[in-house]
């Protein structure tokens, strides 16, 4: 049994890292907003979904004009446009739906967030059906060459792993996004201001920091990252529908909690871990349980991890335990 697990390990790691990178970037959106407003923005999964649709539409549109553009350039253009649009959607969402509720009890903006999820789902569904006649959309196939990794050459224990080029693209872009964000938050003036606002909004305002502007920037970045990840998702899986944001959003939220919600590096770690564990479960669950649970139980596995973390380390892997303020 152990041998079989080892054999699939290279493939599990590659698939898991890619999925985990997607979780991680989406988790950043949850954790940044939570860090600054203590709000769980459940509509963030729908921002991701919106990004997937905008990206797919752009791919179809630009490729319709002529296929002379190199794939990599096409991807960069689509990522930038989509991220900008979803970024502004995020800013608008905060301005219209959350800011008026800034001083309301915390449950109220949470319900509002769920409401925005429905609005986004239905608006996207409406537009998709209007333009293509179906709300399930399949994008063009890009970066679809297969790469074979001869992992068996490293050790005969491993099987070879194979994946599409798009996996590599997803992983690379996601990691670049994370590095950039980490640099922004830890090394730049506005990033430091963001951390200051997250720690103490009033005092940050006394430092001449425009708190509303910092909050808008936070939503912009979180939503732009979410939208960009949506594009990556569409690229990798091809077919999307308006409801993909729900389960992926939940998983990313789990990743954020796993790493310690409010902690940016925690979200990255949590996302990667969750992705790898989930893929491991998908590959090995039936093996481990003698066929009782199959790969379809991988989601149960993800939620079981959430429950375990909440029981034994509620502050998350990198989170700090906080005393309840009196």
């Amino acid at each position, binding site marked *: 049994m152990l041998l079989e697990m080892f054999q699939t390990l290279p493939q599990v790691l590659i698939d898991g890292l890619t999925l985990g990178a997607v979780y991680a970037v989406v988790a950043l959106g949850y954790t940044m907003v939570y860090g600054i407003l203590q709000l769980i923005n459940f509509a963030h999964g729908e921002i991701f979904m919106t990004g997937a649709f905008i990206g797919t539409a752009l791919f179809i549109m630009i490729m319709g004009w002529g296929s002379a553009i190199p794939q990599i350039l096409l991807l960069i253009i689509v990522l930038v446009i989509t991220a900008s649009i979803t970024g502004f959607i995020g800013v608008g969402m905060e301005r219209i739906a959350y800011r008026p509720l800034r001083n309301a009890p915390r449950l109220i903006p949470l319900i509002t967030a769920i409401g925005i999820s429905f609005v986004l789902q239905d608006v996207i569904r409406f537009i998709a059906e209007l333009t293509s006649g179906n709300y399930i959309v399949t994008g063009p196939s890009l970066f679809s060459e297969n790469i074979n990794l001869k992992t068996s050459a490293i050790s005969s224990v491993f099987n070879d792993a194979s994946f599409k080029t798009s996996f590599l693209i997803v992983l690379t872009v996601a990691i670049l996004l994370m590095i950039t964000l980490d640099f922004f938050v830890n090394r730049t*003036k506005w990033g*430091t*201001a963001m*951390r*200051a606002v997250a*720690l*103490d909004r*009033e*005092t*940050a*305002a*006394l*430092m*001449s*920091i*425009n*708190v509303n502007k910092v909050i808008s920037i936070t939503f912009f970045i979180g939503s732009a990252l979410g939208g960009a990840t949506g594009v990556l998702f569409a690229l990798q899986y091809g077919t999307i529908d308006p409801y993909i944001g729900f389960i992926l959003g939940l998983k990313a939220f789990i990743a954020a909690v796993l790493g310690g919600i409010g902690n940016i590096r925690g979200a990255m770690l949590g996302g990667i871990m969750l992705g790898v564990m989930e893929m491991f479960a998908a590959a090995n669950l039936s093996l481990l349980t003698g066929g009782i649970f199959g790969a379809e139980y991988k989601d149960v596995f993800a939620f079981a991890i959430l429950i375990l973390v909440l029981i034994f380390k509620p502050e998350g892997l990198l989170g700090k335990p906080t005393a309840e303020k009196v």
Partner: protein
Amino acid sequence: MMPMLEVKNIETYYGAVQALRGISFDVNEGEIVTLIGSNGAGKSTTLKSISGLAKVKTGSIFYKDKEISNRPPHETTLLGIAHVPEGRRIFGNLTVKENLLMGAFSVKGKQVIEERMEFVFGHFPRLKERLSQKGGTMSGGEQQMLAIGRALMMNPDVLMLDEPSMGLAPIIVEQIFEIILQLNKMGITILLVEQNAYQALSIAHRGYVIQNGSIVLSGKGTELIENDEIKEAYLA
């Protein structure tokens, strides 16, 4: 001469609770003015009303002949009013350097920021030794120094200090008050809120006594120290 800062009959509420019931006072350029009074009298609320952290319902606040009531705090600080809040409110997870840089958030130019940082180190050499330490891991006295240093990074005309002596050992309080005096001699106008009435009055040019959201007494610092009512209520 017009006062630099003039507060006219302000009333401030927290929800339905009235915290200030018509407070009026003024601060002239170059003065040290102190507001003293017991816990909950409205001293901190007065400072918050000036900096914009609390909304004023009626009355007005003038600074350099401009009405500034209910401006958001990030704008009042730009005008030259720095507010060092009660309890120091250091950004605990940020390093000392980052805390100071936040004080200089609106300052343009690396050169200027460096100079101001040197100026702050001149008064608080301890901060220089701890630049990369997290603000929250320092002692109370060091945090107070950082809070004042952070405010000085704005190069303020008026420095509002809310209970700088709170929770500090007497020898540290002595140091802090000495620095406040020095800063005043360099031309910074000081508005000082204190429960430690004796110490505050002894360095202040003038003082106001706040009780239940109203000013009940005012006068020169040296006079108020001698006042029998004050002796009984705050200096005992």
